């Protein structure tokens, strides 16, 4: 814990340089995190074009907000939180437009054979099972497994304690196993 905090965080350095007026530092932050932000937004929107728009919006917000970023969380989890907020906001604003698309997604998730992106049956089944998890468990599992966040960062994004994030993760994996194996829940 102590050792981790003593390690120089390159994101924090870039944020400090940006606040000191170095514009290029922000470009480096973009390059470091654009893929992660894209992945998160993409999970919410399931549409590449919209995802690109929202990803751009995330970084525009980050650009404006970074000067006031107080460093209470990691830059990465701060960015991912903006990404989740922007994605949810986009969904709210485009509720009617996305209704069909979401329905289509639900269909493909529920029937892996119709999965239009992945050919892999196993992966499709897994994603369908993840889609059935309770929202909190789903979020914790995805942030942990797909975005490789630490439990601390997951907790920051899920608005819970680190211990709660760990427990949620445990139950998410168990429920996933039960869904996939048809096993009775605990």
């Amino acid at each position: 814990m102590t050792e981790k905090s003593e390690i120089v965080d390159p994101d924090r350095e870039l944020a400090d340089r940006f606040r000191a007026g170095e514009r290029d530092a922000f470009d480096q932050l973009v390059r470091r995190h654009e893929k992660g932000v894209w992945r998160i937004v993409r999970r919410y929107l399931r549409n590449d074009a919209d995802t690109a728009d929202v990803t751009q919006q995330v970084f525009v917000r980050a650009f404006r907000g970074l000067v006031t970023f107080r460093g209470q969380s990691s830059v990465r989890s701060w960015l991912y939180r903006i990404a989740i907020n922007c994605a949810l906001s986009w969904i709210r604003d485009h509720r009617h437009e996305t209704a069909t698309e979401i329905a289509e997604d639900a269909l493909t998730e529920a029937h892996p054979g119709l999965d239009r992106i992945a050919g892999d049956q196993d992966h499709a089944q897994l994603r369908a099972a993840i889609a059935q998890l309770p929202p909190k468990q789903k979020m914790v599992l995805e942030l942990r497994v797909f975005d490789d966040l630490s439990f601390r960062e997951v907790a920051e994004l899920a608005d819970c304690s680190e211990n709660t994030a760990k427990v949620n993760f445990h139950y998410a994996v168990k429920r996933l196993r039960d869904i996939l194996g048809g096993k009775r829940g605990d």
Partner: protein
Amino acid sequence: MATDDTDDKDRELLGAYLDGVAELTPDERRRVELELANDPALQREADELRSLIQRTRSAAMPTTEPDWSALERQIREAVGPTVPVPFWRRLRWLAPAGTLVTTAAIALLWLHHAPTDRAAIAHDAGSLALVAPAAPAAPAPAVEPVAAPAAVYIDGQVIDISNVDPEALMDDLDGGPDDTAEAEPDSALLPAADYNWIDQLDDQAVERAERWLARKHGG
């Protein structure tokens, strides 16, 4: 019962233990390992969950990746070339200006509320201050103007001067009339204004003077 609760809590950390053992505290880690060592069923469950976590990790939703350099360019254009400045830094000039305005306001308030007919007259000369009795508060129908100071503070003591001739008092305060003027030459003393005459004394005169002084002090 308490032990069962503790066991359940330890088991709830199994997923985190399997996926990120380094993120558990040493105590959490020890407790989970103890549970695993004592429960073969839990060991089997751990194996299943570990395998499932690995499978899930590889099942991330495939997406057609965008043109990252195009995205970066769009972001650069959208945010512009200038690092934004927080609003409080743009308003930094407010601090000195605010201080100035506050000081001016306090000064104005003090001047406005200070009694215009106050009887106290501060005197900057050392410890001297002339004080008159306070005049009645306005609106007073007919207020006799305060003719002259009625008391004098000297070194913290109040001296009533209502029946004293002010000029005589000032003379007393000043230590008598004009003590700065050159003293009248005393017949018993040699002139003190010009000491050139000392250089003109010869040895005999000096000897006489010394004898006179010796007599004077000896007597």
